[in-house]
């Protein structure tokens, strides 16, 4: 199944305008095609397995010169384009080259050294990977919740039945309400608002009221019955301020007589 998928993938892939319809026949992958192969295989082990299984080639019996040349080509290419992904493939090539070269060397006769066939490690890896590949296929064949397994989900809502409630007399209700009010009073807050009173504004008002040559009694600026205390204070401040700026004069004929204000 997965190899069909891979072929599909390659049918869509194009390299320099030419479509790649064939999967690799051997390990010599042109660097340009590498990314495409990287998409269709899970990694170098996957590719090796494919070559062994489908093409029946002996990956360990590949001429070393060609493999080395290709290896060097990749390294060159990686300097130009981003091919970090190719690192795993390079490692694999290097490993194959190493195995091959070790096999060409005469074996060291050493009883203590259990270092067996240089190929053994690679074979072990391939076995484990193919086994896990098979396992993942088997797992995927099991139907899964969220994909193709459906679990019963009957709906259930807890219904609370209305309870019969005890009667309440009007009086009790009234008392309860009174208590609420009483408690609420204890929480009542006294809010202090910032009065929007400007001394400058009052200064202007006083000047206007004085007109040009009028003499007005100090008391007439204050309406104690109507005005709140802050306003009275501000008005007094305004008078003091005007005096300081020499705009008005405050006069008094003798102690305890009425005070008069006039323009300076």
């Amino acid at each position: 199944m997965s190899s069909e998928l891979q072929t599909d993938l390659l049918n869509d892939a194009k390299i320099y305008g030419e479509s790649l319809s064939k999967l690799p026949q051997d390990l010599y992958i042109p660097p340009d095609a590498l990314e495409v192969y990287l998409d269709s295989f899970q990694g170098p082990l996957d590719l090796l397995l494919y070559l062994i299984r489908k093409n029946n080639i002996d990956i360990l019996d590949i001429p070393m010169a060609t493999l080395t040349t290709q290896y060097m080509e990749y390294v060159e290419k990686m300097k130009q384009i981003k091919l970090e992904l190719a690192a795993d493939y390079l490692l694999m090539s290097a490993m194959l080259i190493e195995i091959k070269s070790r096999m060409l060397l005469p074996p060291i006769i050493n009883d203590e050294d259990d270092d067996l066939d240089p190929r053994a490690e690679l074979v072990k890896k391939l076995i484990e990977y193919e086994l896990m590949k098979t396992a993942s296929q088997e797992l995927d064949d099991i139907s899964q919740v969220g994909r193709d397994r459906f679990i019963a989900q009957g709906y259930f809502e807890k219904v609370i039945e209305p309870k019969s409630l005890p009667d309440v007399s009007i009086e009790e209700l009234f008392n309860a309400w009174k208590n609420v009010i009483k408690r609420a009073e204890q929480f009542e807050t006294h809010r202090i608002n910032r009065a929007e009173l400007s001394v400058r504004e009052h200064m202007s008002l006083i000047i206007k009221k004085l007109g040009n040559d009028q003499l007005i009694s100090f008391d007439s600026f204050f309406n104690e019955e109507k005005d709140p205390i802050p306003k009275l204070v501000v008005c007094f401040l305004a008078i003091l301020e005007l005096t300081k700026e020499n705009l008005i004069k405050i006069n008094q004929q003798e102690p305890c007589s009425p005070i008069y204000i006039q323009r300076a």
Partner: protein
Amino acid sequence: MEQSVKYKNIIETALLTSGRPLSIDDLQKLFEEKVERSTIRMLLDDIKNDWNEKTLNLVLVAHGYRFEAKPMFTDSLMRLSPDRAIKYSRAVMEVLAIIAYRQPVTRGDIEKIRGVSLNPNTLRQLLEREWVEIIGQKEVPGRPSLYATTKFFLDDFALKSLNQLPDISHSEDKISHSLEEKLLSADASEQINDQ
């Protein structure tokens, strides 16, 4: 007799409406009085038989018992909401298989088996699905996280325990045989011994 029918109906209703698998411990909580585990098991068997001719199967998974649609309805049900089906990539399934069969494993173990570096996104998908969790750190330099599968993974694959994973020992024999034959062939080793 009357009593056992009542119990059975309560258990059945709970299973149909709970939205999650119920263990025998859970089912015991349904009753004020103490009902023996063996009684509940027997009733579950009855319920299972009752549904044989109907549309749902009563199955036992890691977290307990649950009802699920019989496989014969799968195709129809999938047609109802085709977008619902979550299909994971080959990479995700391979990583899941490695964690399931070789747990606990580190990221490095997974990379070693697959021969490629692991895309963090792959593991994240499995962690987010709660199929996989970190169960500790390996006491080696760097203290890498150890990954293992969860009970939810078993639930979603309708498995009671990890023992129920598909048996791969047959494949193991087959694979190692054929690969060893192909790659460690006699003539090659003769070459080595020849000189």
